């Protein structure tokens, strides 16, 4: 065989050196395992074989550190709506009798930290392919983003300024998502010191498919042809997965070549053609080429079908003629998909791709033996057992869980709450994200019925969840939202993660949607450090605890580890995408307050839980009392609220999160362009500031239609306080007749609206 690497004679130091020089990202233990395998084969590996193992055994591809933890807590929440969950690139979940929705969520952190525009754009490209490869039409994109503070004065060497990263990432998502014609409808933008060195860019996609058209990411039987479709293969995106499975350093810039280049205009017809062939029943299997490129897709598809594969590498259409075999094999060039096609359907498949002007090439076939072989220029350059290649090592790495003592530092009550509320509203994490949202086409496809910005025309506020009406002949809707608050998770990974689930559920219930499934993207630091792995462990445990108690499954997800630089790790960031079902979109409600005279109610219990709150952050006071979650109370609260919305009692509804009751009410008034008078005397015995700004979970403010209030109070089963009514043009909040806050709505809006425009122009 050509270009052999002498592994058999290599001692330990040499093995480590080989791994480093070839950028395999494999440790000594793994190199020894490879050496042993080839020793038995009585030959040395070729360069392409070694590179292939580097890809397949990366954390990114085989989850070698995280899998045992995920298995223990996250996988396997049984629910009747599960159709095909966890196992594939995207989860497939029941929507109605004939249709399923498809969910995928993943990270694109390292590429975005180095090349924000291209990194974010290809993140969108990749997640769309994950949905398309299930045979589904993508219908919505969701983008949770995390950066360092926009006003950071200096940043460490080799790191880009958060403003540069933020603007590049938003431009990348906007340019790619808008061009490809899929609406970007939800997400979040969060700023925190912990992301200065390593921003977090998560991308989610939801699609729709007829149940009978769901395609698996696997081959079915020997003899099938492997057809590579879409873009040509180039040198862009080589070593993307190994790059993603190591910490970022000052010199990461040199790995710019690991970032792929996106081409939405090649993608758009690729989506059409793939959905077309799959709806015509011409495919046996389909999978996208993402991390690891051909090296991962061929092996994973073949092995999942209990087969092997033979590839003729010369057939792969190339961008650069001079590429060597291993480069072709591991390139992560974008806009490519692999199809498994029965020879009898080949002609028709190729015809459809030709009609869409999308290149399609047979590059190999499925074989009976569980072996992968590659031929290049008439020579065999690769031959390995599938099981050895794909089933990478799994580790039970040591982890350490820090104990958290829940306590508050004492501090004196401030005097002017109006001033504090205005400062909270203008703080970047609470302030309007209009600057971002308007750059995304959030209504292409004309099915976004509840939009991310809501309210009186020209006077919008943020919605809690977006609702899509995916089918032409049905009023059934899908509600989407994404959340996590790193201010909580960095103090307490367990309750912080539990709170993320609570907030996602609150957001969905706010519009009248029943939470139906979750996807998780777990962004953490280096798992080889026990405390980092401890954070992942606590977080996963909390997610599993709340989701299991609610009976809502995780259907898809992704783990992104090594999110750290020499300056430290990111805060634990378990991003949760929540999908809810709306039985009739005509019943949905929005956040913006509606009419003078309507009574206002608080749902849920307000507790002295100030840890991680925006209020204490503003005052610079530390506390560890992160809000806890009671899944039973959450279930009860949601059910009561959803039923009230379906009964038509509710005029507007907003969940209480950052900024507490005061922040929540301000946002409702900003959107409705109307004031309110409320008194918090009834809601418990607490200091004024705790009542105003506590971020206890499982709470909402609802505005009830005046003529339905009696009925609402009679049938509502849960903790409920009537606190006031909508009216006037100021937000007046009192506690037992003492005025705490009295601000004209216009002032609230001015404080809330300007921040991002001020920073970003």
């Amino acid at each position, binding site marked *: 065989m050509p270009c052999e690497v002498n592994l058999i004679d290599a001692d330990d130091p040499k093995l480590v050196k080989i791994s480093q020089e070839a950028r395999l990202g494999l440790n000594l233990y793994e190199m020894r395992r490879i050496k042993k395998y080839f020793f038995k084969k009585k030959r040395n590996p070729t360069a392409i074989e070694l590179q292939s193992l580097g890809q397949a055994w990366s954390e990114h591809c085989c989850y070698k550190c995280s899998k045992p933890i995920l298995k223990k807590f996250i996988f396997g929440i049984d629910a009747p709506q599960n159709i095909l969950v966890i196992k594939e690139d995207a989860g497939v979940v029941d929507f109605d009798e004939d249709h399923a929705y498809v969910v995928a969520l993943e990270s694109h952190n390292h590429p975005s930290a180095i090349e924000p525009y291209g990194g974010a754009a290809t993140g969108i490209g990749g997640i769309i392919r994950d949905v398309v490869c299930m045979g589904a039409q993508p219908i919505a994109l969701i983008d949770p983003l995390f950066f360092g503070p926009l006003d950071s004065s200096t940043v460490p060497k080799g790191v880009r300024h958060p403003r540069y990263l933020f603007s590049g990432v938003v431009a990348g998502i*906007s*340019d790619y998502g*808008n*061009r*490809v*014609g899929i609406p970007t409808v939800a997400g979040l933008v969060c700023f925190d010191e912990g992301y200065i060195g390593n921003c977090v860019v998560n991308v989610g996609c939801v699609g729709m498919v007829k149940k009978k058209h769901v395609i698996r990411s696997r081959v079915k039987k020997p003899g099938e042809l492997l057809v590579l479709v879409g873009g040509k293969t180039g040198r862009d995106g080589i070593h993307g997965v190994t790059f993603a499975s190591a910490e970022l350093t000052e010199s990461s810039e040199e790995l710019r070549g690991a970032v792929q280049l996106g081409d*939405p*205009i*090649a993608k*758009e*017809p690729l989506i059409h053609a793939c959905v077309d062939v799959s709806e015509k029943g011409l495919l046996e299997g389909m999978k996208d080429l993402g991390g690891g490129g051909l090296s991962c897709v061929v092996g994973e598809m073949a092995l999942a079908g209990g087969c092997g594969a033979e590839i003729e590498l010369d057939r792969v259409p190339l961008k650069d003629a001079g590429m060597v075999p291993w480069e072709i094999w591991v390139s992560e060039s974008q806009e490519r998909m692999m199809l498994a096609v029965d020879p009898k359907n080949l002609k028709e498949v190729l015809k459809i791709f030709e*009609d*869409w*002007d999308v290149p399609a090439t047979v590059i190999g076939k499925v074989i009976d033996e569980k072996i992968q072989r590659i031929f290049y220029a008439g020579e065999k350059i690769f031959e390995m057992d599938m099981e050895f290649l794909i089933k990478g090592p799994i580790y039970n790495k040591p982890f350490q869980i820090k104990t958290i003592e829940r306590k508050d530092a004492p501090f004196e009550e401030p005097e002017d709450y109006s001033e504090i509320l205005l400062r909270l509203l203008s703080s970047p994490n609470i302030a309007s994200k209009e600057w971002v*949202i*308007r*750059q*995304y*086409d*959030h*209504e*292409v*496809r*004309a*099915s*976004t*019925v*509840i*939009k991310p*910005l*809501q*309210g*009186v*025309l*020209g006077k919008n506020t943020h919605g809690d969840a977006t609702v899509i*009406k995916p089918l*032409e002949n049905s009023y059934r809707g899908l509600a989407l939202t994404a959340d996590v608050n790193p201010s909580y998770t960095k103090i307490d990974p367990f309750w912080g993660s539990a709170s993320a689930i609570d907030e996602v559920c609150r957001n969905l219930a706010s519009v009248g949607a029943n939470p139906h499934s979750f996807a998780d993207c777990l962004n953490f630091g280096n798992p080889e450090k026990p405390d980092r792995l401890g954070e992942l462990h606590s977080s996963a445990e909390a997610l599993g605890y709340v989701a299991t108690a609610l009976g809502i499954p995780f259907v898809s997800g992704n783990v992104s580890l090594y999110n750290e630089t020499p300056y430290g790790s990111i805060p634990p960031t378990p991003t949760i995408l929540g999908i809810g079902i709306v039985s009739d*979109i*005509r019943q*949905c*409600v*929005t956040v*913006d307050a*509606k009419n003078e005279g309507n009574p206002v109610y608080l749902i849920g219990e307000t507790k002295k839980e100030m840890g991680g709150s925006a209020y204490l952050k503003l005052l610079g006071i530390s506390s560890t009392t992160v809000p806890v979650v009671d899944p039973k109370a959450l279930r009860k609260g949601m059910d009561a609220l959803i039923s009230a919305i379906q009964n038509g009692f509710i005029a507007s509804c907003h969940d209480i999160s950052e900024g507490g009751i005061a922040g929540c009410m301000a946002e409702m008034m900003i959107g*409705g362009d109307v004031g309110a008078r409320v008194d918090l005397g009834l809601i418990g015995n607490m200091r004024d500031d705790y009542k105003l700004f506590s971020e206890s979970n499982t709470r909402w403010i609802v505005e009830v239609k005046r003529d339905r209030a009696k009925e609402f109070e009679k049938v509502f089963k849960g903790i409920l306080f009537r606190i006031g009514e909508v009216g006037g043009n100021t937000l007046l909040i009192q506690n037992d007749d003492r005025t705490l806050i009295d601000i004209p709505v216009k002032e609230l809006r001015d404080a809330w609206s300007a921040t991002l425009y001020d920073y970003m122009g």
Partner: protein
Amino acid sequence: MDTKYIKVAVLLIEGTNNEQEVYLAFKRLGADPELLHLKQLISKKDLSDYQCLMIPGGFSAGDYVRAGAIFAARLKSALRKQLMEFAEKGYPIGGICNGFQVLVELGLLPALDSRMSDYPQASLAINDSARFECRPTLLKHESKGNCIFTKDIPYQEVVLMPSAHAEGKFLFPLEKQDEYLQRLIDNDQVVFRYVDTQGNYADYPWNPNGSLYNIAAICNPEGNVFGMMPHPERVFYRYTHPDWTRVYKENGDGKAVFESVLGYIRRKF
């Protein structure tokens, strides 16, 4: 002719991405729309078999040159004569968003001196904000009856249709600006102008791109070729209006555009 026999060609190339919405708008009203790739129209189909041609929004060919320029060039090189004939017979040609840009690049709009000018007489330039803007826009209907795509909308009525574009600033060449604008007005070619909630011609954000004279939509002098930047197909139903949970409307404001053009074809052909 009967609505169900009205064949509408919804034309696309790579990067067109609003075709499904336009297709559905006609379908819901009982017409016979067809999604047609430019390749098919050139090689296998005949434009004269259709009664209406629609060019939907998107980013045709990526809009990496000038928005709509590549789509227009391909159309022109293959179908110039057929397009001329189609327009001359009075068949409606509509362009939305990117489609409007294509019609301007083709010379079918504003077409001040002939049915189809050899060079574009106007342009849809980069928004003043230099950003893609996705926002609800309010449009005052200004056509006094010339435009066949808005016949069902009362004169001076304000309607809501969302905008979503990066290049939508309607401009004439500076040296001809006053003359062309006056002719556009005199010919009853100005169809929609951006206004605020009070119905006043207003600046950003109500005029989302900085268009001359707040122009959002125009037609040709004969009224059968029509282009608009905002998206009527996105507000076919009331449930896609941004404020439907607070303002009641029977229908989406965009529906009338599709009803108008179908009504015209029914009456005329």
